[in-house]
């Protein structure tokens, strides 16, 4: 279930030398990361227009320079309750399978450059966040950053076979 399908560490050595960059961000006390290639822009939180009769983690839509972009509350998507968004909250606009969407997070932390070989699979442990959302673990110093699988997070809202590995 938590098998990191797209990750190079399942492949041969050739991929091991490949360095990849990730953007890490904070939701609550946890650090998460997504592939920097999927990120289109990062902006402060602004009020959204609520769409009727949607899942509670679907916060509505934003006007991103004329494009209507749906915004999702990551905390809520993890089942950890709704974020009370303020101006200091951040929306990360990502592209998944040709669609743009925004992720509401608490703060953006860093850009990580990681050798693909250093990404560890997620151990199958009991945890509040659904393992399907997690693609791997990146050790950073003493702590760790959880790599997210964007296409699994929003499988209902994008093409099933999104090409972007998170």
């Amino acid at each position: 279930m938590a098998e990191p399908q797209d990750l190079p560490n399942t492949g041969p050595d050739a991929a091991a030398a490949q360095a990849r960059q990730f953007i890490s961000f904070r939701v609550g006390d946890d650090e998460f990361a997504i592939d920097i290639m999927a990120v289109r822009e990062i902006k402060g939180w602004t009020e959204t227009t609520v769409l009727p009769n949607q899942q509670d983690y679907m916060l509505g839509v934003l006007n991103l320079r004329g494009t209507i972009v749906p915004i999702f509350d990551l905390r809520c998507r993890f089942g950890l309750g709704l974020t009370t968004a303020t101006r200091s909250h951040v929306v990360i606009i990502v592209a998944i399978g040709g669609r743009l969407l925004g992720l509401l997070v608490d703060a953006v932390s860093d850009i990580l450059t990681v050798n693909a070989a250093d990404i560890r699979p997620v151990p199958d442990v009991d945890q509040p966040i659904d393992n399907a959302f997690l693609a791997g673990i990146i050790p950073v110093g003493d702590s760790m950053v959880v790599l997210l699988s964007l296409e699994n997070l929003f499988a209902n809202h994008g093409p099933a076979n999104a090409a972007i590995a998170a």
Partner: protein
Amino acid sequence: MSTPSFGSDELAQFRRTFFEECTELLADLEERLGALAAYSSDVEGLNAIFRAVHSVKAGAGAFGYTVLVGFAHRFEALLDRLRDGKAELDERTLAALVAAADVFSALVDLARQGETPADDFGADVAEELSALLKGETQTTAPIRPTASAPEAPPVDRSYRIVFRPNAELFRHANEPLYLIRELKALGTLTIDCDLARLPAFEAFNVDDAYLGWTMTLRADCSPAAIAEVFEFVDDECELIIEEIADAQAEPEVVAPPPAAEAEATNSPSESKSSETKPADAKTAGKTGSISSIRVDLYRVDRLVNMVGELVIAQAMLAQQFIETRKQDDPGALQGFEHLAGLTRELQECVMAIRMQPVKSVFSRMPRLVRDVGHKTGKDVRLEMSGEQTEVDKTVIEELADPLTHMIRNAVDHGIEDADTRLAAGKPAGGVIRLSAQHAGSNILIHVEDDGAGLDRDRLLAKAIDKGIVPASAKLSAEEIDELIFSPGFSTAAAVTDVSGRGVGMDVVRRNVQALGGRVQVVSTPGKGTRFTLVIPLTLAVLDGMVVAVGWEKYILPLTSIVESFRPGRGQIRVVPGGGEVVSIRGEFVRLIHLARVFGVSEAVSDPCQGLVVLIELANGSKLGVVVDELIGQQQVVIKSLQDNYDPVPGISGATILGNGRVALIVDIEELTRLHDRSARAVDTTRLPIAANA
């Protein structure tokens, strides 16, 4: 052949279009020739070149560019032989093709500028084409000198040539003028035109060739060389070539333009048309060459989007300025007003780029009426008006199907057969009127027939039979008429192969709804049926009413709004089952609370505190939408939600308001279904209510 019924404006328009197409075709031809030179013996390439030449020829024929037609004919003939493998594509042929393409495009240019090419223009290339056509194995010198110069050759011989084309000459794209010019190139030619076969005006058929010519040629050539000129027409004419002893030909005679025969309908003296034609062509040439360009629709769409953004940005800026500066700077305020005016104008200009006359769709209909009329054995005339009414290109494309269905239905089902009509005291021939006009930001299209009208008894019986309405239902005449939009209906007593099995009208309604429009039917028994399509001019902008519900703002399409009012306590009734209705002028209208359907909190829940917006649905029934208040009417740029998200029930799209926020556009038709789901109501709710009323 030019048709007298076209005005000179239209003719000039057609001519412009023709030259635009020529430019494209020639570019294509050039490209294909290049490819041909590189890869050789590419049959597809030859086909494409042939088509290009043929298309230009067909158009040129219609506008009477005879030299062009003549040349094209030769060009085409050689290409045809190459295609069929009867001639070989060698260096010489290729060179000739390239040279021919040059002459061809030069001829098009001359025609565009309204100039008549010199008689021997491109004669050398034409000669070479003929040589290749005959399979002459002439080595080297791909360009043969024309029957060498007018310097009188030492031994001139005189020939009498009688040339009487058969009537169908023109139908095979032959042109006598070219042949005569060719003869003239051989030497000195005297021509007598024979009008004897010209029929009375009533019997004149513009497609037929009536003229004949008796010519005297003084030239240094063999009879075979003369026969060669007529090579392409010798089985389509009566041709006599004989040598005459006494040589006393006039030095120069102007050949009457035989192409003018078509116009000779009006007066047998051909001079008139030859005067007017170059003048027309000249005006077309002046504007025609640069008057229009073809642009990828994607680019136009981007432009439309960007201008939409500009309008929003401008509105935001102005709003912020007014809020912060408290209007203490009249100069800047004026500047903002000017900017607002300019952006509005810019938006209109950009929208106009996408606008096209509905003519392109309408023009397919006469033929449809003829065909269906013929098939059903009915005499039906189509009258059209408002073909020049402009509407967004994307809308036009979507109009073709619904119109085709409706017109076909009108001929097949609407118009009665001649006997029935006569018995009803009507003329035997039926009339269908198709018209278009603008109405605000909509286009109205009427399809009207003078047939029997809808047979309500049979409609109702069938609807009950099919279980579309309960047997006990009491429907008004209008509601019965509406039934033809139900899926799976056939109104003709016998199912014909023309209108099929009545899958038409529900498809029409669906198509029209997909365009954000409505279709209505009005039928008068014995007098006829009229369908009205109301369709927004463009799919890019919408006239909307901004309404507030709680903290949210929604856009209702203005076209479906009838009125809005604050109901009194007594007007609201609760029907068994929990549904609310409002009574207005004796009619009970179902109420839908936008806040409840969309789950908006902090909204007005009592209709008597808020407002009821009365909306007419596509099927003609009404609906009351409860909102907090009306904010105002606004033209909005429609944005798709589905570019980045899934369809949202009840929402047809989104737009961006002046404050930069997104507002959702309500899908009225879907709203009823949403509500139905939550209130456990059935689709026929309105029927019992209407029956009670």
